[in-house]
């Protein structure tokens, strides 16, 4: 496959991620920060996100499994996850975290478990998507092409 085609494929894929709401403008900001001084910035940050999220999800599962659930702790974890996901622009994960926090406030264990499930699902989805994206990028770089620069035009009215 020649470079142009791969780049187009990469663009299509990115576009689809935005359209489907997996990523939002923040991700584009991250892509902008990637330059010759910092060539793997996005991958690094996203990997950090994956590590962080997995740890948090494990802690959350553990905390909600207890007999006496410490909602403050659960809330703190969810807050962290929300912060991370919004930092990299994982929109759906962030929204799921917002819902999760509401139910935490209400101290509704069943709803929290449901939310946790949802967050996990969203996280898996976005992780797969991002990993696919990075694979595409690696392929492009491997054949000597460059990843198209995304310049955000005025995004708000």
């Amino acid at each position, binding site marked *: 496959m020649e470079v*142009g085609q791969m*780049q*187009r494929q990469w*663009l299509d894929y*990115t*576009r689809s991620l*935005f*359209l489907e709401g997996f990523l939002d*403008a*923040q991700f584009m*900001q*991250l892509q*902008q*920060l990637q*330059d010759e*001084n*910092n060539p793997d*910035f996005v991958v*690094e*940050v996203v990997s*950090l*996100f994956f590590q*962080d999220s997995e740890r948090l999800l494990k802690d959350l599962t553990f905390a909600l499994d207890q007999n006496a659930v410490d909602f403050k702790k659960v809330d703190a974890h969810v*807050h*962290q996850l929300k*912060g*991370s*996901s*919004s*930092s*990299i622009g994982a929109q759906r994960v962030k929204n799921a975290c917002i819902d999760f926090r509401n139910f935490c406030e209400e101290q509704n264990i069943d709803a929290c478990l449901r939310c946790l499930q949802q967050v996990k699902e969203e996280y898996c989805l976005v992780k797969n998507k991002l990993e696919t994206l990075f694979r595409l990028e690696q392929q492009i770089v491997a054949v000597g092409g460059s990843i*198209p*620069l*995304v*310049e*955000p*035009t*005025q*995004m*708000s*009215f």
Partner: protein
Amino acid sequence: MESCNCIDPQVPADDLLMKYQYISDFFIALAYFSIPLELIYFVKKSAVFPYRWVLVQFGAFIVLCGATHLINLWTFRIHSRTVAVVMTTAKVLTAVVSCATALMLVHIIPDLLSVKTRELFLKNKAAELDREMGLIRTQEETGRHVRMLTHEIRSTLDRHTILKTTLVELGRTLALEECALWMPTRTGLELQLSYTLRQQNPVGYTVPIHLPVINQVFSSNRAVKISPNCPVARLRPYAGQYMPGPVVAVRVPLLHLSNFQIYDWPEVSTRSYALMVLMLPSDSARQWHVHELELVEVVADQVAVALSHAAILEESMRARDQLMEQNVALDLARREAETAIRARNDFLAVMNHEMRTPMHAVIALSSLLQETDLTAEQRLMVETILKSSNLLATLINDVLDLSRLEDGSLQLETATFNLHSLFREVLNLIRPVASVKKLSLTSHLASDLPMHVIGDEKRLMQTILNVVGNAVKFSKKGCISITASIAKPESFRDARIPDFLPVPNDSHFYLQVQVEDSGSGINPQDIPKLFTKFAQNQSLITRNPAGSGLGLAICRRFVNLMEGHIWIESEGIGKGCTVTFIVKLGITDRSNDFKPPSLPKVLGNHGSTNFTRLKVLVMDDNGVSRSVTKGLLMHLGCDVTTASSSDECLRVVSLEHEVVFMDVCTGLDGYELAVRIHEKFLKHQDRPLIVALTGNTKKVTKENYMRVGMDGLILKPVSVDKMRGVLSELLERRVLFETV
């Protein structure tokens, strides 16, 4: 020997005679003895006999007489001296007593006689009292009847019931044969039989009102006996020869409100009367008694009062019903209006949000698309898509703005901007569309127009765009000219806008913009309607189905907010039209005024050289977010140190750092950290600037942050350009608080 005169002892030969005398004497004696006994017995029985003493005397007299006669029995033969003595004693006593009695009787008999007269007198009196009692009772009865009648009549406020009840009750009380009411007709010239007691449906007899008998009845307030043969009394069809019963008629005044003037009690005012006719049963020998007549009169008066009450009540109830209806209607209208407003607001809110989301996607992706490899034709298409989407976005904003304009919640922004470049941009935007339609576009900016002015750039642009856009829309050929100049007061002695004198002074001036087109023009009569929302010039709709009609209404509101005026002139259909507006703008003497610290716009690509080697410290407890912020600052050329907690931050921070960025999603920690940093560098002049980064708008108050000594506040998400602007602002002014 002395003997009483009653016996003749010289004739002894007649034994039979003697025997009879003997017997008679005996019986006499017996009688004489029994009478007093009877008397005593009956006197004892009766309690009231006043003359006991007389009786005693009388009794004694009789007893003695009897005794005498008894003793006489023994004197028929030869009798001894004792008998004679006894006889004599008895006679003497008898004589005494009888004389005494005789004397007594002289006193007593007149008394007895007067008793009799008194008795007679008392009997008469009793009879008289009885009669009077009867009278009083009748009167009381009458009074009771009146009260009951009145009560019945006044217990209802319905006119018909009142009249009917009157007749029924009167009929019952007085045991009438027939009772009828004649009411005056509308013309007032006749009396119509309205209600009768026995007949269910009175046929509408009418009788002229000026009959002598009627006049007679109307002229007095008493019940008048009338002849049964007069027209008003012929109430029933007669069969037979019996005499109709006596008839009485009385007038019933029909009162109107206007009858009661306060200082002028109605005496002989123009009132109308109804006639009540009462007929006693024909085959009874009854006659009308005075008390019955009085009853009838009283009832007639009561009926009048009751009727007037009923009339007043009817009036007031009608008025009240009317008011209630109006109230209900008003309430309904108000609720409908509220519902409509609520519906509109909800609709706007929803539509606004719903419309923006896909717009967002379209614009974002079109921008992305622009960055890819495209042919020139494709690029043009994409640019058109972008421009159209932006215009659409503007329209969405317009709708929102209009609703906010109407609520009065829209406020103009004041900022410095370049007037000349605004016009240039307008022209650039319109030129392609105009050239497509083969319209020529000319503009002329007066030379004395200031370069930099203060006002709401966005809305001024919207207004101009709208006006020019309309000109282009409604012109099929020809040219469009835009003229901008300073409005002169002399040119404004205009009948169109009285009281408007655009007088410029040092701080502001009035910008006049005139857009002339040679298009289809407008009928002068339609001009007032143009500024109405959603109204479209009907003749143009068929040619230009697009356009919601909001534009001019919004323009007018913006122009009004800018303390100006807008108006349209046109000579008629096909003769083009001219739109002129004047707005007030502020003058500034600085041509390169800084924008105030809110940074909504893209600042463009400055070099990142300003920030090379700028030492900054980033404190964030979230690893991912920390890396992102670090990457951002490094991209801008800063030398970034990171800290993952407040304590680490305090340890690491030094005077070398120029700015400390702290993520304060957790709220209070940020405050405390700022205070501690201040404490650490209390004695030093050039402590690091402290800037808070937060995504949570709810807990943020600028005052709180300033109080703890923060120098700045930025809202997440932060883009590269935003951060660039923030840093330059910060380093220039040493403070930056983004508006929330």
